[in-house]
């Protein structure tokens, strides 16, 4: 579960609008890619990267720095795409920005991104979600190179529930587990999971009627849940105390529990897992495109994805698996994402939020 965004950040988008710096807010064509020969050469100049702090660690970037000793790599961090969009719209200048499917709308709506040429990314076609529409704009241009993901399925206490008996989101609503189930308190995942439990197929693209139907279902079953977990930490606490034996949740959260000695397993539901997907994109006023493409190539490579997987993310490039210790391969396997439904900002996102608020309020 990633930290949700504050309403204040949304307000900032409005506040920051008049301050657009040069080059932002202008729709531009695909960023021209360097030749294959040029891509092999070390990058030079300055590359300004704006990203989450946990995907731009020294462990991740040191090999790239060593391979490009004449490149001045500058990193600035943010805590959400909405905050990033506000800062970019206010005039902050960067070449490459990390974007996530479930929160990139402020960036695309303000034309803060510039499409890229996937042919310049050697491993692009091997990456999980590379063929998804969610990494493209409405014209079909690729907006970002997928670099990390977090699948969201079911967390099951294996001491209380026999392994293999839970494999569907419908199990969250099974009276057998009444009072011992938790639901992640997020409008997107809570409604998405519930929608799949009642057989709706596009949990991230529900119509207004479907949202209403899902809300009614969820409201009628709210007594099923022991808690609506506000964070990973509270979800872990609920499992650790034994109050909860079944919940929806991320694979990373389940891994944390296992490392702490809690007997749980993460189960991909048969309806499909939800997943946040993040990656690297060009800003609309990116200057050092050559170095940007080289950085994207590095992030898409098996070597970089192996480092990312060791930090707890899914390896987006299957080539990374053979570089990982055997005990990490299962958790990092991108095959988990084969049936994944990317978490995206729905068309009726406000209706999602309102429905969830009403359910929470009882």
């Amino acid at each position: 579960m990633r930290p949700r965004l504050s309403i204040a950040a949304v307000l900032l988008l409005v506040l920051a609008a008049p301050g657009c710096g040069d080059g932002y807010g202008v729709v531009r064509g695909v960023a021209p890619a360097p030749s294959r020969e040029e891509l092999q050469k070390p990058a030079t100049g300055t590359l300004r990267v704006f990203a989450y702090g946990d995907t731009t660690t020294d462990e991740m970037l040191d090999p790239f720095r060593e391979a490009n000793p004449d490149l001045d790599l500058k990193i600035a961090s943010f805590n959400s795409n909405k905050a990033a969009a506000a800062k970019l719209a206010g005039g902050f200048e960067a070449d490459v920005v990390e974007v996530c499917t479930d929160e990139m709308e402020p960036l695309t709506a303000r034309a803060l991104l510039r499409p890229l040429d996937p042919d310049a990314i050697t491993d692009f076609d091997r990456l999980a979600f590379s063929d998804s529409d969610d990494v493209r704009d409405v014209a079909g241009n690729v907006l970002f190179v997928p670099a990390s993901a977090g699948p969201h399925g079911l967390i099951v206490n294996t001491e209380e529930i026999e392994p293999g008996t839970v494999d569907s989101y419908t199990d969250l609503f099974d009276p057998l587990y009444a009072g011992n189930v938790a639901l992640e308190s997020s409008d997107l995942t809570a409604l998405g999971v519930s929608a799949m439990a009642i057989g709706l197929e596009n949990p991230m693209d529900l119509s207004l009627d479907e949202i209403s139907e899902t809300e009614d279902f969820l409201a009628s079953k709210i007594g099923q849940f022991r808690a609506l977990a506000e964070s990973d930490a509270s979800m872990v606490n609920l499992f650790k105390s034994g109050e909860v034996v079944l919940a929806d949740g991320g694979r990373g959260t389940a891994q944390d529990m296992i490392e702490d000695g809690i007997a749980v397993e993460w189960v991909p539901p048969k309806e499909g897992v939800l997943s946040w997907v993040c990656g690297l994109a060009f800003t609309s006023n990116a200057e050092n495109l050559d170095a940007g493409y080289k950085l994207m190539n590095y992030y898409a490579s098996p070597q970089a994805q192996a480092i990312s997987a060791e930090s707890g993310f899914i390896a987006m490039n299957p080539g990374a698996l053979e570089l990982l210790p055997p005990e990490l391969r299962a958790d990092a396997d991108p095959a988990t994402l084969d049936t994944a439904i990317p978490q995206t900002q729905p068309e009726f996102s406000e209706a999602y939020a309102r429905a969830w608020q009403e359910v929470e309020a009882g």
Partner: protein
Amino acid sequence: MSAAPVAPSRPLGLRVRRRLPGIGSALLVAATMLILFGPVLMLALFSFNDSTIISLPWEGFTTRWYEQAWDTRLARESVLNSLVVASIVTVLSLVLGTMAAWGLTRLRFPGRGAIAGLHGSVLVVPWLIIGVAGLMFFSEVKVPLSLRTVGVMHLVVTFPLVVAIISAGLVRFSRNLEEAAVDLGASQWQMLRYVVLPQIGPSLAAASIFAFAWSFNNFEISFFTGGFEQTFPVWVFSILRQSENLPVVNAVSTVIAFAQVLAVFGAWRLMKRLTRNRGGDDALKDLMTGAVR
């Protein structure tokens, strides 16, 4: 001979009733202390827990989160950046704020009230708005974002605070003492050095602590006006996406909280020494209230 009369003991109910206010006060203070310091103490406690999960039961004692924090270059750099910015901002805001407070409380000039109100108005503007305004300003005037721009915008919010605290100290301090010093032959500098500064010392100390803390802990302004060198709060927010980073954040935060407590204690000891004739308790009260008593 009859035995001396024994004084009747007070009834139990009366004794309890007499002690009730004391007990109530103690409970209230304990509850307040728990609410104020409980979260920080929990943070410190769990920074030694041998688990990535911030929850009971206790999994064992470890110092590995501190070692990991020390080995994290970005953590070290961000703390150092925050220390440098906060130190410079504190010194500048103290110098400028003291001068402004002196002018506002000791001089008479047209528009004095309006200027005092104008600078004070910054204190009620949310930091988020100030951060965005700073970003847009620097963008318009083509000044690249850096620690300097962060410092300038921190100064915008700490300066009025320092002015308010020191003005309060100056207003409380009787001007008769200044006039007496001058009458006795003191120069302006001697009057300032030997009469005014010792009197407003607690206000200066309180203003320093608040200015430093406001600058060091600020996220909103630092995020929007910072460039590619990040401060500690910006670094913390950027890595909280993964919950396993929490123990390292806990460890660094514990060290910082401990250092800040030490700084306040140090300031109190210093004030006690400087104002020995006024008594340590007064110095402490002045420090905690910015001499607004």
